[in-house]
């Protein structure tokens, strides 16, 4: 029996590369693959990861969401500020609703009006930045009486030794995965991303599907904002800057195509985890933090190139 190397590489190349990387770093450093360190890394990536879960739906429909970084900032400011006036419970509710509202607005413009997703969400990046500065008056906000509030549990607490953000991230990943793989909505997300015209002829409401994908992106970002606010117990006006690109880097690293129609939640989780372990591994090896950016560059290019090469059966296009 011959082994089909190309098929194997195509389907499991990602896990293979990830495993090789982990093994390589672990050989050089004893502290790397310890349960404590692994949980640390997962906790660090949980905010990026939560957002990436929502954005994955958008990317699978063949769209983009560049507004999530600004959205994270605004929602974190809202949750922290409202915590001081309404209390933790209502503040979280407000934040989730605000996230859904922003997602709905994006979804309206992209899904129903058919505007270019890149431009709409780019415009929203700027607009939401402005709204944040207007809302906060340009100053940082802090949770008053952080010690007395149960709000800290989302970012700082842990259950049975596992940090709550990690539980939230992995739990949401499970739910998102179910939604994407096992429901009618999930199937239509793939169909719209694969071929929108065909999907409409098959009776799928493509506009509603895209709209809902953006809703999920807003909701996921709101959850991330709750974790962020609870972890920092405050918010600066630049706290979410650059997250939109890190999230996309993780999704791409996982092997989800930006063209839409393919990809999955577990791929996103692995991609995001890879980013975290690269950062952590390089720091443990004693490199300055910015070296991770060079490595991320090389790994993104290599991962996507290998993926494409395996699919088309030759290295060069």
């Amino acid at each position, binding site marked *: 029996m011959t082994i089909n190397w190309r098929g194997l590489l195509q389907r499991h190349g990602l896990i293979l590369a990830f495993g090789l990387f982990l093994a390589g770093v672990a050989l050089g450093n004893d502290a790397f693959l310890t349960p404590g360190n692994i949980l640390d890394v997962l906790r660090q990536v949980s905010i990026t990861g939560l957002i990436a879960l929502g954005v994955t739906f958008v990317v699978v429909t063949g769209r983009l969401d560049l507004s999530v970084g600004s959205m994270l900032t605004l929602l974190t400011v809202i949750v922290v500020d409202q915590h001081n006036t309404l209390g933790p419970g209502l503040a979280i509710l407000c934040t989730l609703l605000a996230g859904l509202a922003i997602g709905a607005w994006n979804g309206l413009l992209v899904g129903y009006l058919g505007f270019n997703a890149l431009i709409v969400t780019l415009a929203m990046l700027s607009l939401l930045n402005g709204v944040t500065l207007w809302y906060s008056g340009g100053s940082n906000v802090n949770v008053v009486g952080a010690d007395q509030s149960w709000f800290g549990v989302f970012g700082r607490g842990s259950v049975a030794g596992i940090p709550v953000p990690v539980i939230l991230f992995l739990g949401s990943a499970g739910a998102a995965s179910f939604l994407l793989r096992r429901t009618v909505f999930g199937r239509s997300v793939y169909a719209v991303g694969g071929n929108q015209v065909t999907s409409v002829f098959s009776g799928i409401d493509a506009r509603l599907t895209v709209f809902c994908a953006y809703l999920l992106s807003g909701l996921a970002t709101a959850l991330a904002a709750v974790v962020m606010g609870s972890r920092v117990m405050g918010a600066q006006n630049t706290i979410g800057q650059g997250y939109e*690109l890190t999230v996309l880097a993780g999704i791409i690293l996982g092997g989800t195509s930006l063209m839409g129609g393919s990809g999955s939640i577990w791929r996103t989780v692995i991609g995001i985890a890879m980013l975290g372990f690269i950062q952590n591994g390089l720091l443990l090896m004693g490199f300055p933090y910015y070296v991770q950016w060079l490595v991320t560059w090389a790994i993104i290019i290599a991962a996507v190139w290998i993926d494409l090469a395996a699919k088309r059966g030759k290295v060069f296009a």
Partner: protein
Amino acid sequence: MTAIHTTPQRAGAMTHATRALLRNHIWLFLVLAIAVFSGATPYFLTTNNMGNILTQGAFIGILAIGMTLVILNGEIDLSVGANLALAGALAIGLQPAVGVWPAIGLAFLTSTALGVLNGLLVVFSGMHSFIVTLGGLIGIRGLVFVYTGENALMVEDFSYTELAEVYLGPLSLTAMIFLGLAAMFQWVLSSTRHGRETYSVGDNIEAAHDAGINIKRHKVINFGICGAMAGIAGILLSMRLGTAEPNAGRIWELWTIIAVVLGGTRLQGGYGSLWMTVGGVLTLAVLRNGLRLLNTPNYVELMVMGSVLILALGLNRLVEMREGAR
């Protein structure tokens, strides 16, 4: 059949001139914005301030020239902001070792080479340029930090900052370079083979290939030009500031794309021009400058820019619908 014949006649009431104006709506908007700000503050419509606006807009403007070529090809370059920062850091950092002009030359060559690298990766891997240059954005920023050691580099000999202090009336050297490059590349687009091929590659890549255009070489050249423009903008910025900050140009790639798209160049490629881009760049610069003169807080600027962009999308859609009905 009759229905089809009558519609064009009714829509024909919309004259050719109105259509041309609607298609270049950015210039209409620019004139409107200038009129509003001129009425609102006496400090706006002065020769000096007009010169200021051109200088302030020139940095994003120079980036936007390269970006327009790449977008006309149907590609995108997200790495221009990081590339700009690297050029600035090299132009200042290399001076003590090799002298001013060689440092400027090396900075320019490095940026161009990184642009070419982006292009090579795009055409040989078959990856989408969004992914390649997103990687570039992260990685080149890493190069900047490695080179500067995350410190801002200060120029040692301050005569370097005087190099850009050449004025022709209110027009600074930076603004002149921006306008000169825009005019030059508009000529390239409208009157050379490379320009014609840029449109055909962006419009229909299969047809362009069948017509015998070497698409790979063509795209690499445009990515190279885009990198070169980032280099020029970075060098000019380092001259103006006298320092090179490792975080310079952060999210400028997004402002650049906003300027190009606002101008009316189609993000899918094949349609647009540098006149449109210059209009977009100037509109952004006028809005920024005017709102500052009116003493509006920073957030108004951000909100206005976002809204204008969405409005421009709506206007585009309106024009398309009208043209479709014609």
